[in-house]
Structure formats: structure tokens, C-alpha cells
């Protein structure tokens, strides 16, 4: 045997584990000591005006950050703020990309962290966490006074849609911290040079695409091998603007024939026409999103449909004068239910407080700190992205081109923002959208084929009693 453990000890431990060698129920039940039953919420301190959540000042805090596109440095700033308020508390910082593999055993073992940023490709599906009762109801946090002004509740400091995004079945279980916005992106200097005007209607977009193609540039690019789903914003976005919020409500609520609604059919046929006319960069179906985006920043394509993380993602590769600019999805026809300036804003980076955490109150306090003006500014400064806090980017002195254009677009949109939930609530949708949108864009299927495939997924989810359903 290796150092540190003699054979007798080793055998003793194995004997102790003997129970475990017997199949599962016993094993898993044996691990349940930390969890199960009522949630005590762990450490409790005295509630006061400065400590509205009743944080135990000396309780350690365990924070797990998703180390993805936004890095981990902003979290270190938040942790420093927590330490400043509670100098006796030990704050443990973990940054990882493999959320699911590392956190799942901790959840089963009843030993989850106090704050979890559940994001990225390896995230645990939020719906699963909620359905299994693993998360803390964040109502106390939302009703607590904000850090900046004791007369304003935390819930009133958030941008529209934030609470809705974290709400499952009427209860808010998470704060999505980054206000991600979805748009068509282009290089402003390229358009100026060619005298192209960014389109506001679908017809203008088609006309301009013809012009762009004639100039020897592909109008659009996309990453077919892993990110065809980005393009869904083009047809579903246009359909929602045309028909109003009910269009997406029907889809999210799994209404029958929701994917056959007239505006959606029209917009999807629009994409089919674009494919037929060759408006997508040839070979896009064989590109990864990073490769497609590289073609785009090199000027091989004019437009790229994506979320607002795109500038940060491409910053080491984009030419310095690229000037990424956001363009809202054009409307199908004038007289649409929502104006052309409307945007899909979808808060992301799901911060939650696990129910079995040892320091639930501390976890909520940490979120309160994140949602303060100072916390938000630290994030915006560090990541050049928009946090879900009102006025969160005000303090950022030097805005990047994309951030500046995004702020302007958000101002222009005002309350005309929308989002969709179906692929967050029901795991079956995301892979289906990727596959079917890939088929549509590569010409392997028609608009009709795409929509019936999506309708089939929706019907299957709706008819499966084992899947928890949500409504909006």
C-alpha cells in the first residue's frame, strides 16, 4: 500500500464502506444525512436594518463560479465586498467549467455550495434543480431592501424580465445576472464604406442581402456544426414582433399548433427563401461557431445572428476597427404588433442558493451584494457586459463599440422586450432546434418540415406526464 495508510486501516475503511458495495438504495440513502427533510437554511444571525436577511457574521461562505466567457475576476470583487461587510467570514472561491460533474455529487450528498453560478455547456438544467426541490426560494432576497437605498427593495432595482426569467411555477429560484440581448451584428465601418443601410423590415433585409451578395460577400454566416440554433432569433424573433407576445406565450405554454402560427410560418418561409437564394455563407453548415464568427470578422460575411457575448468572445480575433454593432431583428411587415426596435433580452448566468446550503442567508446576502450598484459596476467594468441591475453600466467610463450600440438599442426598445422559455423549461427543445435549424439552413428540409418537427417535439413534451409543466 502507498504511504499514509497501512493495510489494516485500509481494510477497516473498506469494511465501513461495505454497505456501499450493496446496490444503490442503501448507498444513496446513506448519503442523505446532510439533506432531505426540512431545510434549516444553516447558519442564522440577528436580523437588523443593516442585516435584513439575518446573516450569521462568522459563517463561512462557499461560492462556486462558472469560469466561462465572463471569467472569474468579477466574482472576486464581489467576494471582497462580502468580506468587507462580514470580516469574520471565511469566503471560499471555486471557479470551474465542469459544473454538472463537480456539483451533482455535492447536491446528492447534501453538501452543495452556498452560491452557485450554474451556467455554461456543462450546467445542470435549472428545471431539474427546481423540480427536484434543490433550490432556495429567493423571495426574502427580492423583498429585502437594496444595499444602496433602504427604501427600495431589491426586486425594484432589476431590469424588466429578470425575475420572470428565474421564476418557475410562481416562485423565483434564481437570479440571472447578465442581461443578454440578441440581435443581428454587423461591422459599421464596412456598411458605411459600401453605403449599405441596416434594414428594418424583412423586405429591406432581402433587398440588401441581394446587394451584399452582388458585392461578393455572403450576407449571413452561421456555425452549423454546433450553433445553428442562434438563427432561431431570425424567424421566431420576427414572428413575435409581428404577432405580439402571444406568439411566444403559445409556444412556451405548449399550446397545440403553436409552431404553426401564421407569423412564424411566414418568417420561417423567409429563411427558406434566404437559403434558396444563397444568402448564407457557403460551407457554413460545416463550421463551428468560432470558425463562422472568424469568417464574419474577416469580412467574408456581413451579418451574424448572436447574443451580446459575441464581442467579448471575438475580442482577440476581431480587427481593431471592426466596430461590432447591434441591429434588432427586422419586422416582417410594417404595422407589426411590436416596433422594429423591440429586442429579445434574456437574462443569463443563473445564480442560485441551494436549499441544502450550510449558509443560505449568506448566499442570499451575496446575491444582494452582486445586485448593488457597486457590485454591478464591478461586473460591467470587468466584463464589458450589461448586468441586470438598473443603471448597471452607468459607471462604466469607456464603453466598447458593441456595449455602446447595445445600450442605445436597449434604450430605443424601452419596454418592448421579449424572451422565450420553452428551451429552458423543457430540455428536449434545444437539441431539436439545433438539428432541425441545421437541416433548414443546409437545405435538407423546408420551412414546413422544420415547423412540423418542432411541433412534434412540443406535442411529445405536452403529452408526457412525467415532465413538470410551466406556464406564463
Amino acid at each position, binding site marked *: 500500500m*502507498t504511504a499514509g*495508510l497501512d493495510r489494516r486501516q485500509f481494510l477497516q*475503511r473498506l469494511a465501513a464502506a461495505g454497505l*456501499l458495495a450493496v446496490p444503490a438504495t442503501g448507498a444513496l440513502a446513506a448519503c442523505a444525512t446532510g439533506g432531505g427533510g426540512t431545510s434549516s437554511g444553516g447558519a442564522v444571525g440577528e436580523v437588523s436594518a443593516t442585516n435584513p436577511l439575518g446573516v450569521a457574521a462568522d459563517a463561512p461562505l462557499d461560492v462556486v463560479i462558472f469560469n466561462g466567457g465572463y471569467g472569474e475576476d468579477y466574482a472576486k470583487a464581489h467576494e471582497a465586498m462580502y468580506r468587507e461587510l462580514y470580516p469574520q467570514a471565511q469566503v471560499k472561491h471555486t471557479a*470551474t*467549467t465542469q459544473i454538472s460533474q*463537480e456539483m451533482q455529487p455535492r447536491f446528492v450528498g447534501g453538501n452543495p455550495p452556498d452560491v452557485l453560478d450554474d451556467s455554461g455547456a456543462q450546467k445542470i438544467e435549472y428545471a431539474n434543480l427546481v423540480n427536484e426541490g434543490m433550490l432556495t426560494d429567493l423571495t426574502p432576497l427580492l423583498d429585502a431592501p437594496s444595499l444602496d437605498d433602504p427604501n427600495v427593495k431589491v426586486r425594484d432595482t432589476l431590469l424588466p424580465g429578470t425575475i420572470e426569467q428565474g421564476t418557475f411555477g410562481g416562485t423565483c429560484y434564481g437570479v440571472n445576472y447578465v442581461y443578454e440581448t440578441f440581435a443581428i451584428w454587423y461591422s459599421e465601418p464596412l456598411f458605411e464604406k459600401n453605403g449599405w443601410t441596416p434594414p428594418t423590415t424583412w423586405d429591406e433585409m432581402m433587398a440588401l442581402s441581394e446587394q451584399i451578395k452582388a458585392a461578393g460577400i455572403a450576407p449571413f454566416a452561421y456555425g452549423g456544426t454546433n450553433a445553428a440554433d442562434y438563427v432561431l432569433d431570425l424567424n421566431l424573433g420576427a414572428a413575435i414582433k409581428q404577432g405580439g407576445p402571444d406568439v411566444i406565450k403559445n409556444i412556451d405554454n405548449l399550446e397545440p399548433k403553436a409552431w404553426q402560427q401564421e407569423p412564424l410560418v411566414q418568417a420561417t418561409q423567409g429563411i427558406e427563401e434566404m437559403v434558396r437564394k444563397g444568402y448564407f455563407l457557403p460551407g457554413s453548415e460545416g463550421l463551428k461557431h*468560432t470558425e463562422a464568427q472568424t469568417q464574419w470578422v474577416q469580412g467574408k460575411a456581413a451579418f451574424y445572428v448572436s447574443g451580446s457575448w459575441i464581442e467579448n468572445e471575438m475580442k482577440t*480575433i476581431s480587427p481593431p476597427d471592426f466596430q461590432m454593432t447591434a441591429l434588432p431583428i427586422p419586422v416582417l411587415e410594417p404595422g407589426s404588433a411590436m416596433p422594429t426596435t423591440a429586442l429579445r433580452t434574456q437574462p443569463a448566468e443563473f445564480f442560485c442558493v441551494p436549499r441544502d446550503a450550510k449558509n443560505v442567508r449568506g448566499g442570499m446576502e451575496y446575491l444582494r451584494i452582486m445586485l448593488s450598484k457597486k457590485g454591478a459596476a464591478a461586473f460591467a467594468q470587468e466584463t464589458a457586459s450589461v448586468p441586470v441591475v438598473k443603471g448597471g453600466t452607468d459607471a462604466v467610463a469607456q464603453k466598447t463599440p458593441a456595449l455602446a450600440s447595445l445600450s442605445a438599442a436597449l434604450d430605443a426598445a424601452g419596454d418592448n422586450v421579449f424572451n422565450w422559455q420553452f428551451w429552458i423549461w423543457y430540455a428536449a427543445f434545444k437539441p431539436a432546434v439545433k438539428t432541425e435549424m441545421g437541416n433548414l439552413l443546409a437545405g435538407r428540409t423546408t420551412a414546413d418540415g422544420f415547423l412540423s418537427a418542432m411541433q412534434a417535439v412540443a406535442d411529445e413534451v405536452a403529452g408526457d406526464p412525467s415532465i413538470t409543466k410551466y406556464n406564463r
Partner: protein
Amino acid sequence: MTLTPTKPPQHPAPVEMDPPEDGPSVGERVASVFSTGFVAVWAVLVVLPLLWAVLTAFKSDQEILTDPWGLPQQWRLDNFARAWTEGNIGTYFVNSLIVVVTATVLVMLLGAMTAYVIARYRFPGRDVIYYTFVAGMAFPIFLALVPLFFVVKNVGLTATYLGLVLVYVAYALPFTVFFLTGFFRTLPGSLIEAALLDGCSHAGVFFRIMLPLAEPGIVSVGIFNFLGLWNQFILPLVLMPDQDKYVLSQGLVVLAATQGYRSDWSGLFAGLVIATLPVVAVYIVFQRRIQEGLAVGAFR
């Protein structure tokens, strides 16, 4: 008693075969040219991509994506520096070395003992044991991840090197037992007979005679285990949550993820090249012995 380990079944033949004395036919010569050509082409197909990987590690992110096939305009050593420091490659390297070397030595010892007993003794349950090990090669690892986590946790070995080593040993056993069993079966039984008659114990026969005889097989299987465990990343991901004790492959996963979210391709390639070099070195150094081991019958 000690026996000088002799090379098992001596094959009389040298490696190469001479063409017939009266010279090859035209067809033979054409075939020779062709096969030599194919071999050379394949060598190029193998070497070029490797060179490409090394070159890429010296490029900037922009060059990698915009000009994947060109030479780097400037040889960026800082990619390696970044991978080394930010990726913590240095520390992880040492951690990997500790875990993988210990596990390899241990699995070779235990695997050889098991294989020897299975190959040379008849006892009830022998075939069951053998096929249980063979079956172990067929299991998809991530199926067992979560249960395995709790097994390790309940033995009190989560986030310890020992835990990782024991799990590595357990998961490398099937391959080791499978190949060494075949190997031990090819060794001459008369030696054992003689030794036992001489009063040598069963264990003595194994350690003094059979183990030295099996050395070529043990070395080559050991090297495969080393290579395999060096690249293992799913197991440590779940069993080694302590970031100070991360092994190299975990560090690479972090680099790969960073590349995915922040387009740090150059850091990823530099890290991968750093991680690959020792493995290549091990292979080159032991290349002759691996071949010996294979030739003598690890695959029988």
C-alpha cells in the same frame, strides 16, 4: 534458488527476409516500390499534423483562426508561459507524475499477480473472475461516475492522491489482467515444475522466476497503462475537486473550456503540447522494449 531470467521462447529467425537469391521479378519490384511509397506517404500524413500542432502552439489566436496553415509571423513563447502559469501546468504536472507513476507500479504488481494465478492455476470460479475482468474493459466509465463518487467518499478518500491512485488501479486492472494472462500462458510450465520440486513456494516461483521472465510483457503493458492513465480526465474530474491537487488532464480541460468561451486557442495548444511531450518522450525511450514485449506475446 535464482534463475537468470532467460528470454522466453526463442524464435530462431531474424527480422528481415531476404528476397530470393536470383532477384525479384518485375511484379515484385513494382509491388515493392508501391508498398514503400505507401509507407512513406503515411509517414508524411502522420508527421505533418504533429508539426502543425507544434507550430500552432507558437501562433497568436488571430493567426490560428485566420491563417491556420501558415507559419507563425512571430514565435510566441508567451503562449507556453501563459499555459504554464495560468494553466498551472507545472504543479499539475508534478501531481500527475505522483499519481500516475504510483498507480502504474501498483497495477502492474497486482495485475501480474492476478494474471499469473488465472493463467497457471485451476480453481473454482477462475473463469468467472477472468471474464469479470474482461467485462471491465467494456464499461463506459461515466455511467458509474456518480455511484463511484460515493464509494470513494464513504471510504474517506475523496480529494486524496490515494483515492485517485486506488481508483486508477482498479480501472486499469481489466486491461492489465487480460493481456498478462495471455502472456503468462505462453511461459514454459516446466520451469515452475522444476522450481516447485526444488522446494520453492508458490509465491517464490512467481516472484523469483515468473515475474522476471514476464518482464517484457510487464514493461510494455505498464507503458500502455502509463499512457492511458496520463490522459485520463473523467475520473479525476469527479474524484479530485481540490484544485491544488488537480492532475494535468484536469488542467487541460480547464484550458480547453477557456478556449471555448474566450477563444484562447494558442494557450490551449501550448498546454496540450507541453502535456504531450513527456508522453512522446516515454514512448521514444521505451520504444524498443514495447516492441519486445509485444513480440514475445502480450497479445497471445
